[in-house]
């Protein structure tokens, strides 16, 4: 485990270690850290903003940076779909509902339930620590070569896998369509006063 931590540290902090100066973080790593920082900061703003519209906007920023992270993971199709579905549809829906209910005004003061919040913070800290340790403990870092992962995210690869009867994705895909249909019907039933 210590070894893994060391390896991780070398990737991030090598600039501060004398003798490793020539091992500056490479461009992909820089890009990653920029995107990750944007994602984390905007995610924090989602939680800390009292105004739901601003929360929603911050979430859009998170989604966009996550989409760009997908591109760094060579998942181009997922990236595009992430923007189209999350940023383009889901978040617009959120904004729409916020505006419809006219909830734009800042909410009242802090929650009354202090114990809940403290417990949540403490538990979250433990949770985060555990989550952060998990990959260091369990991961071998020998990822596959660039060539092997290059075409993973193309539309043709995903389509060929999704619709290949020999792979287990076709049935879930069909089931998803039924799920969406049910959701559509459910949303209409819920939202319409008189059907």
């Amino acid at each position, binding site marked *: 485990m210590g070894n893994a931590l060391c390896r991780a540290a070398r990737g991030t902090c090598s600039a501060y270690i004398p003798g490793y100066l020539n091992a500056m973080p490479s461009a992909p790593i820089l890009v990653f850290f920029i995107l990750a920082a944007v994602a984390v900061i905007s995610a924090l703003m989602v939680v800390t903003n009292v105004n739901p519209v601003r929360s929603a906007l911050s979430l859009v920023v998170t989604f966009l940076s996550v989409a760009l992270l997908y591109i760094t993971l060579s998942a181009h199709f997922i990236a595009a779909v992430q923007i189209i579905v999350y940023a383009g549809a889901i978040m617009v829906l959120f904004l729409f509902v916020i505006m419809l209910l006219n909830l734009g005004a800042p909410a009242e003061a802090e929650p009354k339930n202090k114990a809940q919040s403290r417990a949540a913070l403490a538990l979250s800290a433990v949770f985060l620590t*555990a989550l952060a340790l998990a990959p260091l403990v369990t991961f071998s870092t020998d990822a596959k070569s660039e060539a092997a992962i290059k075409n993973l995210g193309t539309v043709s690869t995903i389509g060929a896998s999704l619709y290949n009867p020999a792979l287990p994705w076709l049935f879930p895909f069909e089931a998803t369509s039924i799920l969406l249909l049910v959701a559509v019907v459910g949303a209409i039933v819920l939202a319409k006063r008189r059907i």
Partner: protein
Amino acid sequence: MPSYAWLIVWLPLLGFLHNAFAGYLYKDLAARKKAVSYIAPGVVLAAFVVTLAVLKNEVLTAADHRVIVPLIPGLSPETPWINIAGFKANFGLLLDPLSMLMAMVVTGIGGLIHIYATGYMAEDREQPRFFTYFNLFIFMMLLLVLGSNFLMMFVGWEGVGSCSYLLISFWYTDENNAKAGNKAFIVNRVGDLGFALGMMAIWSVFGTLSYFGEKGTGVMQMAARHVDLLGNPLNIGVVTLICSLLFVGAMGKSAQIPLWVWLPDAMAGPTPVSALIHAATMVTAGVVMLTRCSWLFVQAPGALQLVGWIGLATAFVGATIGLVQSDIKRVLAFSTVSQLGYMFLACGVGNFTAGMFHVLTHACFKALLFLGSGAVIHSMHGEQDMRKMGGLKKLIPRTWFVMFIGTYAIAGFPFLSGFFSKDEILGSASASPWGNGVLLYGVGLLTAFMTAFYMNRLMHKTFYTDARFVDGELHAHHHSNFDEHEDAHGADAHAHEGANDHGHGDAHGGGTVHESPPSMMIPLYVLAVLSVLVGIVLGPTKIFEHFLEPSVARLDLGPLAEVTPLVPEIVGWVISGAIAIGGLTLAAMLYGSRKQTGELTTEASKVKNPLYAFLANKWCFDLVYNKVFITIGGKFADRVLWKYVDVRLIDGAVNGVANAVGKISGTIRKVQTGYVRNYALGILFGVVALLVGLLAQWTTLNR
């Protein structure tokens, strides 16, 4: 070449569908009845033709005379019908001599009875419903005999039971008919339970329900090799259990002691039903099943002995009761019980071929007798009591003739078919491998004597003695479900009067005895010819034995099997013939001397005679059953099962659990605050605990 065997099964089903939906197809009742009366026998006879073709082209040319073909054309025989968790059953038809023999009997004799029924049921308003059930019965019976595994046989088994129920209570407006149907159904359930348990036992031992499979994976093949599914040698106790359970099923279906009580009551149905279902085909299903499982039974001598004893007892009891019956159909019903006992006797001594031979001959002459009695009843305008008949020989000579043939055939008059099959059974009984040959032979002969006696008694009371009714003033006594039937029928029949000389138009005022229409007589002639010829053609020539050989296992008990028959074959023939002639003669002498009354004693002396009362009460079986199952069993259920087991044990347990849950949850429910975030916190706590635990485990493992 593709197999056409599926047609045998599907044709009657097609007919069934047509008849069932005839009401939609033909708006006019007359047109509907006419169409049904052509379609219903037509499909069965077509199935018979297909059966012959399949027998010639597919079975006799096949190696080992055994073929498995798919039930549904186009599928492979291996296509599973049910495939759940290792349990597999196929949609296959097993074509071998046994199944083809039964298919021929069912479709051939069944077809004749269908033709007969078109005449017999011509006036019934619900004739299409009748033929719907009839064709469905044929379909189910064919499934039973042709199915390639026990499950399909079971489907057919239950199907014929249902059809039997439907047909017994066909005239359901009469409460007695409905009750008779219920009785048949319920008694059969007892047997079916045995069959079902037997099937389960078979599956647990052999892991399959197919009779035959590829590379010896069928039940029969494994049984023949003395191994079970895992290749271990068969446990004889288990096989005995299986065979006994299967035999319980056979008892129910084939009306053996103690489950025979339904068969006499089943005569409430229309006579063609009695002929087809309760004489020729369905009741022999038990024998067929035993023969089908002969490989199993020969592994279980105990079960075989049970079969033999039960068969003997049934034969004897049935014959004794037959002596005192006055209803023409009931005489025949008890004779059927008795003859079925003969068949099981044959199976019980290991001579399945003889049993099946008797099935075949019995199907011919018993169908003939039933149909003949039906013709008599038809001529007498619904009268079934022999005490009110007599002297019919002059009035309906053609019917008398065929009844005469049938009587001599069943009595075992030399060189008629019953003679050969019964002699075969008696011969093998005398050579019983269980060492009780003398007893079996003796009782068998006694039974044969009684058979000849009561059959000739029936003939005398019906045909020879003086008429005990006034011709032309017979009471019109038509079975029907509907009162308005009379009126509708009246108009109907008058319209038809010119078309055929049926003469039923005058039925209400009082009818004359008349010969049956050709649609009823022609099947009788055919059956009469069969009753004469089947035995002598197939029996002594050993054709039948060779034909059935691939389907029947031989009882091989090693040195035990070397039992010499009591008497040589020729002597056996002579004894059998003498017994038959003796029985016939005794009846002729006794009844010939009392031509006026047709009774040996008066009614009053009958009542006083305890033996007579005992026999007329059917050996008190119904009384005992009533006492044991209805009275005592009812009390037991009421006092113990309901008041103690159900109320205290079961309800108490359920209510106790509910109370405990209520109390516990009353305290725990405080946790439910109604705030989602509190629950979410709980979930997070669980997740963190899980994650930390896993991390700890991983680090320990990786160290």
